[in-house]
């Protein structure tokens, strides 16, 4: 059983949803970012999405665009992101890490080398925004062959005719992008999310995590009543943007994470 499967199975047994947190690797710098990463599980993150910075994040809103730029300016690159996971794994063997980003840096790094290094570093899953199932053979197939889950995004525009194709090779969990738009933009109504999850359930038995536009413990709690996982990204990343220094960035991200975790844990209570 993969670390992602184990985590979602354990939480299902506990009767609660997972808090999935997104931060960009290397934001605001390597050391502070590693401190955030190491602190997230204790602050209540159940699954960690770690953004791989890319100069042209076409599907991201301003918050994550700026996070990406901060990380790149601080010298982050793909090799360092894998190193960060390696360092995290020396102290944590249970919290799944999903790398999220765009294809080009991996393409440049070399798919074969990337898959081997990522597996070795302790990466559990990949979300590659600009690799739809039409291009499965490029990365999804070799990654899954190496035991790394490939997590698909499904969206409000993914209709019933297309869903089976998108879900066919999904593993780990399914990420439902609850609004058509970029990260950090508006949020969906609970009714929309409820209907969307019901539709997805007809097509898959994988855990379903919902993201986009979830910023507060209250919103997280509302989604946690409907879904298997709640993804929060831009709100955490904004804490880094607003911090006076790296130390404050670490503290503020972790305290928002704790508050979100409380919301998620008490949601069904």
């Amino acid at each position, binding site marked *: 059983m993969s670390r992602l499967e184990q985590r979602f199975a354990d939480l299902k047994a506990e009767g609660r949803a997972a808090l999935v947190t997104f931060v960009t690797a290397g934001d605001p710098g390597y050391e502070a970012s590693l401190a955030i990463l190491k602190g997230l599980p204790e602050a209540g993150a159940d699954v960690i999405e770690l953004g791989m*910075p*890319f*100069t*042209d*994040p*076409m*599907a991201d*809103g301003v918050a994550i*665009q700026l996070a990406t730029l901060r990380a*790149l300016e601080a010298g982050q*690159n*793909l*090799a360092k992101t894998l190193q960060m996971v390696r360092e995290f794994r020396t102290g944590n063997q249970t919290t799944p890490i999903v790398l999220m980003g*765009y*294809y*080009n*840096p*991996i*393409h*440049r*790094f070399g798919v074969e080398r990337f898959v081997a290094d990522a597996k070795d570093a302790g990466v559990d899953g990949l979300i590659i*925004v*600009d*690799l*739809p199932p*039409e*291009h499965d053979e490029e990365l999804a197939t070799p990654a899954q062959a190496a035991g790394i889950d490939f997590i*698909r*995004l*499904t*969206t*409000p*525009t*993914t*209709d019933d005719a*297309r869903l089976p194709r*998108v879900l066919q090779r999904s593993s780990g969990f399914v990420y439902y*992008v609850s609004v*058509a*738009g*970029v990260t950090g*933009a508006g949020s969906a109504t609970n009714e929309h999310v409820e209907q969307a999850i019901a539709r997805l359930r007809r097509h898959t038995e994988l855990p379903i995590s919902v993201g986009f536009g979830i910023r507060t413990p209250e919103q997280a709690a509302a989604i946690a009543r409907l879904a298997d996982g709640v993804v929060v990204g831009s709100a955490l990343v904004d804490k880094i943007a607003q911090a006076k220094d790296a130390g404050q960035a670490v503290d503020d991200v972790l305290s928002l994470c704790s508050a979100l975790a409380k919301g998620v844990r008490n949601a069904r209570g």
Partner: protein
Amino acid sequence: MSQTHYRAGPDANGLFGSFGGRYVAETLMPLVLDLAREYEAAKADPAFLEELAYFQRDYIGRPNPLYFAERLTEHCGGAKIYFKREELNHTGAHKVNNCIGQVLLARRMGKKRLIAETGAGMHGVATATVAARFGIPCVIYMGATDIERQQANVFRMKLLGAEIVPVTAGTGTLKDAMNEALRDWVTNVEDTFYLIGTVAGPHPYPAMVRDFQSIIGKETRAQMQEKEGRVPDSLVACVGGGSNAMGLFHEFLDDANVDIIGVEAGGHGVDTDKHAASLNGGVPGVLHGNRTYLLQDDDGQITDAHSISAGLDYPGIGPEHAFLHEVKRVEYVSITDDQALDAFHATCRLEGIIPALETAHALAEAIRRAPSLPKDHLMVVCLSGRGDKDMQTVMNHMAAQEKQA
């Protein structure tokens, strides 16, 4: 190798060899697939083609002339140089050929809003123009740097009723405008048509834009046949994304005796870090929906392009060009800012034509090549756009040179 080899692409997945494809976020995938279906249907519909032909003739003013550039030919003393006069089209460049096609498709699909990216502003102007003509609201994304250096086109777009959104992210040029247009599209999926201006982006854009531009080559073949009784010996066009070049080249790809030359923007030189020559100075990667040659660093981060011409200032190139480069059907060379400016001035003085700075790159290559070619060599240069928009850039450059002297 079969005779139709080079013109056969793309395949059903939008691939030209290993280039092209559909590397987009899932939110956009259904839209991109829908567009491909709608375009296939439109292309086979005589009513659509008839209407397209009507607007090409009566609105754009096609066919435009294939003009014998007599004085430039004398000046070079070699090949007989012809200009395909795309700058005489309504709006002053080849861009409108594509915009008319796409706006008819947008209307057919019932879309209520157009978005576009623009670099030099020529595609923005052409989009704003067809948006006005068909009464569809339109939003143009343009890099803040480009807005600064293309004031005249910004004003033209405003006159035509378009909303201009300045993009400050990144270097504030074409690449960043395209990112922002994609962000708009992913947000407004219900009613918005993304009118891409070049032969790049996810399938079907590279093939569709090429098809709408291919009238350039088709007319050239007929006109050269009429004037000289044969096909040209060589074709020269500038390449940023590469739409005017694909438009001229595609018709002749399987004419083995026609030499085809694409001219990239060499900026300060391809051996420096200030150029926009993706084929001569880049490596394959994935950006903006397609696999193609990109300017990037060792970590796969996209690096800044540089060119004196805003329209060539893009770190990628259309995937069909990447394919034609790899199979060596087309020769891709580069021309520096200074060489382009020299050709710009020469064309002004010798032919009474003020070319766009983009076009000046093709002219520079023609001027470099022509002297060593025989006098019966027929060369066609795609005069892709007029230079009115570049007055400020050229003035600034001349002033800077005078200061240095």
